[in-house]
């Protein structure tokens, strides 16, 4: 291990470290622009210059390997002069338009200039003009501000895996651009806004809407996919102004997928903000008391065996505790959280979790994807797989419809027949898995949310046993959820009780008139035509798919409007926080159900969030501690049976519009239209 002297202090760093890392280990802060710990080293901005004894000139510490015996100065007059010089040169062509720049207040160039830079310019000549570039509906550009650090290019090449940005021309004429003004296609592109150290790349929807210092920052979690990325909600007054990622090494690192970042305008559109009742065929606004009384009357008039509860994709655990309690008090066993009709059971837990964990992907050496397109279903899980692949020595196989995942994939086949072959060891990939040190399987909803799902799940179980996905200290069986609510629902046991109906049973029951009253708790992905015949009480946030056929509407809170718990696909309980209040008369969902239980005369005795959470911990002790994953027990699941030869298809065909929020978002609609146009062009089927 090399030992260096940094400003008189001796530090030892792991071999392969850079001088910059050594300086950081010694507690010295080195200013940087182009260096980023998660990207390859470019060494082109020269901001990180330090003095190394016996070297004639200041050295770029980010690109200099730490060697034994180096004596480094980070605070000498030479270093200060060097930093000042670099900043003066960087500012030569920089427009200095901080007062009208979105980055103002959170700009590296501004900060570093303040600390290290010159206080005036000696440059009398004309500044270089650079035309702004069109990069699509998400990113706006101000290319005169660009300092050519190339972080944006490197991010897209290395992490997002799409080569779409480049540096064209050379020297003074260098410009960052996409291939001739084409919109970026990456689902992770928003991250380059965060990475850009200056105001060259900005969020288009947020542009000129607010100044950073007037925003309230609320740390929360995302629910637009099942990854549970850590986010920061920036709000002003009662309006969400933007959403940014927050560092969580084990989940999203420091990235965020674009839907999660940009769909927030959907929080302000098509909202259900008053309770409504259907009178003479039309939904009419009423007050809370009236709607609750009307629903309560209906409940009392209906035989409990004819009442069902369906739970949607973004529902929080507090609300689900209330659903469970209420259903129990009403005496109905028809409770279903598997809105997609998947056959997942609640025991053993391992069947519905991403047991390897997201960070664990980095330890795997062979991976089999079955019926999943992680790039659309969970972009940050896909980014981890790509990260693992870039390190080398990693093989990915797939059973399902091919899709470009940004890394090479061996396509084994498209449907259950291939899975059968692998599970029985007839396929050579089975040997690969068995011979691997840490093999993993990722089973998508596209494989099991179909009529033969239970049999497919059974095959996956068989495969897990036959290639030994479970080894000491390793569980390679993974289920990739697409809904933020699902794992929480399964943990809390929101599946049909004894004699209860599952999704198919409930829908068939509605058809035959055996189910008359349906509580739709945020259900938006079930064909509304199939619910229509029942009296539907819809607790939701948006006038999306279910509201038009509902008989009563209870306006609830979106994820930015409540303090609530969600469990991500790994089984990691996390708490989202209230950033703004629900619109109009909308209320926190669990409180609505609590009030309803009282109106029905079957009060659920949970009055405070603390009581609800205590009950949650009783129902599912594993949810008692936030941000902690409890390893799941293994056992048998799925069942043997005939399978349908139809190929496995991902449930997500349009990444940009998958939930009420993203469907209400104009920004997502634009992205979706662009993607559709591109797809048409690619297949040559114009029009």
């Amino acid at each position, binding site marked *: 291990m090399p030992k260096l002297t940094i400003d008189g202090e001796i530090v030892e760093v792991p071999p392969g470290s850079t001088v910059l890392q050594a300086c950081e280990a010694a507690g010295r802060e080195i200013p940087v622009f182009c260096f980023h710990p998660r990207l390859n080293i470019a060494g082109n901005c020269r901001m990180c210059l330090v003095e190394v004894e016996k070297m004639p000139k200041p050295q770029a510490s980010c690109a200099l390997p730490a060697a034994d015996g180096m004596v480094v100065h980070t605070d000498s007059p030479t270093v200060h002069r060097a930093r000042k010089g670099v900043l003066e040169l960087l500012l030569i062509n920089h427009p200095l338009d901080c007062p009208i720049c979105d980055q103002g207040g959170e700009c590296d160039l501004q900060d570093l200039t303040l600390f290290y830079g010159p206080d005036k310019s000696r440059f009398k000549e004309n500044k270089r003009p650079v035309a702004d570039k069109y990069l699509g509906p998400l990113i706006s550009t101000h290319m005169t501000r660009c300092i050519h650090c190339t972080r944006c290019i490197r991010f897209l090449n290395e992490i997002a895996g799409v080569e779409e940005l*480049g540096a064209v021309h050379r020297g003074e004429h260098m410009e960052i*651009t996409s*291939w001739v003004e084409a919109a970026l296609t990456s689902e992770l592109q928003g991250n380059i806004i965060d990475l850009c150290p200056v105001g060259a790349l900005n969020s288009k929807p947020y542009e000129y809407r607010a100044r950073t210092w007037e925003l309230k920052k609320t740390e929360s979690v995302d629910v637009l996919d099942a990854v549970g990325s850590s986010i920061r909600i920036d709000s002003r007054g009662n309006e969400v102004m933007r959403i940014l990622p927050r560092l969580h090494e084990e989940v999203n690192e420091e990235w965020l997928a674009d839907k999660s970042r940009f769909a927030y305008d959907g929080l302000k559109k098509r909202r259900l903000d008053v309770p409504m009742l259907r009178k003479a065929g039309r939904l009419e606004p009423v007050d809370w008391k009236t709607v609750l009384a009307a629903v309560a009357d209906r409940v009392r008039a209906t035989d409990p065996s004819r009442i069902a509860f369906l739970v949607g994709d973004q529902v929080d655990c507090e609300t689900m505790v209330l659903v469970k309690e209420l259903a129990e008090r009403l005496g109905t066993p028809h409770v279903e959280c598997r809105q997609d009709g998947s056959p997942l059971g609640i025991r053993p837990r391992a069947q519905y979790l991403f047991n390897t964990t997201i960070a664990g992907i980095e330890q795997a050496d062979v991976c089999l994807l079955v019926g999943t397109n992680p790039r659309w279903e969970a972009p940050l899980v896909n980014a981890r797989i790509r990260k693992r692949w870039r390190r080398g020595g990693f093989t990915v196989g797939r059973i399902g419809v091919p899709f470009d995942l940004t890394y090479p994939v061996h396509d084994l086949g498209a449907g259950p027949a291939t899975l059968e072959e692998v599970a029985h060891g007839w396929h050579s990939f089975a040997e690969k898995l068995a011979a691997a040190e840490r093999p993993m399987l990722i089973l998508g909803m596209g494989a099991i949310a179909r009529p033969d799902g239970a049999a497919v799940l059974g095959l996956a179980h068989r495969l897990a046993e036959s290639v030994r996905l479970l080894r000491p200290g390793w569980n390679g069986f993974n289920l990739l959820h697409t809904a933020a609510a699902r794992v929480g629902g399964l943990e809390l046991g929101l599946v049909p009780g004894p004699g209860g109906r599952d999704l198919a049973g409930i829908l068939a029951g509605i058809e035959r008139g055996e189910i008359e009253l349906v509580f739709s708790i945020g259900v938006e992905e079930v064909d509304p035509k199939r619910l229509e015949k029942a009296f539907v009480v819809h607790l939701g946030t948006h006038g999306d798919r279910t509201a038009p056929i509902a008989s009563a509407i209870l306006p609830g809170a979106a994820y930015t409007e409540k303090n609530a718990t969600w469990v991500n696909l790994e089984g990691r309980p996390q708490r989202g926080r209230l950033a703004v209040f629900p619109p109009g008369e909308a209320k926190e969902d669990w409180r609505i159900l609590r009030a309803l239980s009282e109106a029905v005369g079957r009060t659920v005795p949970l009055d405070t969030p603390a009581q609800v959470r205590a009950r949650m911990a009783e129902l599912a002790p594993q949810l008692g501690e936030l941000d902690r994953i409890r390893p799941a027990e293994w056992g048998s699941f799925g069942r043997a049976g005939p399978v349908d030869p139809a190929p496995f298809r991902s449930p997500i065909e349009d990444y940009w519009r998958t939930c009420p929020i993203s469907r209400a978002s104009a920004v997502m609609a634009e992205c979706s239209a662009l993607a559709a146009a591109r797809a048409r062009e690619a297949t040559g089927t114009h029009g």
Partner: protein
Amino acid sequence: MSAAPGAKKPYGAMAPDVDRFAFTPENLEEAKRILARYPPGRQASAVLPLLHLAQAQHGGWLPKAALDYVAEFLGMAKIRVYEVASFYDMFNIEPVGRVQVRVCTTTPCWLCGSDAVLKAAREVLGCEPGESSPDGRFYLREFECLGACANAPVLWIDDDFYEDLTYERAKAVLEAVVRGERPEPGPQSGRKGSMPAGGKTTLLEVGE
């Protein structure tokens, strides 16, 4: 530089922009031959020779369709090809005259009189450096060191170097080119290669 098939034909106006580009059958053969020089997985290294080939085929400049075609041909991202094509001065990504006339104006050539060469070029072609001639046949540029300083000043026309120039010699070469001829490339002073201008001073005993 690879040979530029077709470059020695008489020249018309600049080549038009096109939305489709493909190698001619001969160039396709040539491209395959070039590609075979590189080990599997390293085909992207052939981007420079292929761009030269495409540029020669398309009359001295590379339309977007040609860059896309080369990218496709090599299985590279399009933006990577655009980066390369825009980085090197030898590639033109905007329409220019078919005949490329480049005057070296770096210090050694300048000391030996490149100003006069440039003057001759301006007069004969009737355009400024960075422009194409009014008839669209020639593209005049200033260039940095062409690596032939021993024979400064140097004029580079398509694939040929004309060296040891003066105002008159440059004018004569260019006028011939305008007439559609190609004078013998190399030193225009009569000396051989870069032998001393005043005749041999060393290796006198070695026969010619």
